[in-house]
């Protein structure tokens, strides 16, 4: 089951293509009986993860690609985003609490919108963020 429901996407590190992972997720979700709100929250989270992978990871060098993996198991979707950058010290990262700050909201948003969020380094050296969200059935909307 896990193997058969894995969709993989490779994108150049160009913000222009940030809509693609969202579109893939919305298409996957269109065939699931799931809350639109939950799906959109996960969509927003994957956009944040890809923004970071392109910008902080691959330094917007569009010769470098990011990889996005979608795994569907029942109503639970796991999304992994990989980039070719150095990563960061996520264990000690704390967000600013300045309300009007211009940046520094991506990780917070992902944390709020997913059930679990995890950073790691892949065996092949790439930096990796993995998020899981169980989508509620659509009746709960």
């Amino acid at each position: 089951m896990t193997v058969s429901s894995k969709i993989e996407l490779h994108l150049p590190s160009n913000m222009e293509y940030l809509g693609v992972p969202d579109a893939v997720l919305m298409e996957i979700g269109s065939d699931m009986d799931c809350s639109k709100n939950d799906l959109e929250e996960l969509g927003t989270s994957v956009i944040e993860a890809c923004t970071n992978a392109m910008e902080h990871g691959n330094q917007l060098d569009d010769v470098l690609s990011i990889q996005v993996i979608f795994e569907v198991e029942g109503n639970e979707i796991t999304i992994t985003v990989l980039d070719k950058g150095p990563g960061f010290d996520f264990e000690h990262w704390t967000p600013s609490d300045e309300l009007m700050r211009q940046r520094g909201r991506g990780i917070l948003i992902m944390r709020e919108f997913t059930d679990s969020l995890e950073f790691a380094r892949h065996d092949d050296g790439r930096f990796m963020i993995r998020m899981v969200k169980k989508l509620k059935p659509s009746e709960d909307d």
Partner: protein
Amino acid sequence: MKLKERKRDGVAILEMSGKLMGGPDSETFDETLKTLIHEGCHNVIVSMERVKWVNSTGLGILISGYTTLKKSGGELKLLKVSDRIENIFIVSKLYTVFESFQDEDEAVQSFS
């Protein structure tokens, strides 16, 4: 992201469409506001009905615009924010900063 500009009762209405994210969108938005301020127009409504999504970098663009207008004595307000985007304003607590309307007349009148 694209902007279409019109005016009503001295208030500029910017109809935003597409995806609001970092990069070139920031310049587009800043330039438009600067021109408006230069023309003496400090009150701006950003209509977001046709915005598909916003990322956190896009939020930064709105915040910067809000600050710019505030400094010039005006204000930036939002119109027709979708559920998807409102959700992001809520988790980031920015709903406490931006006044937001669903009705254009109301939004325009709120400046007078």
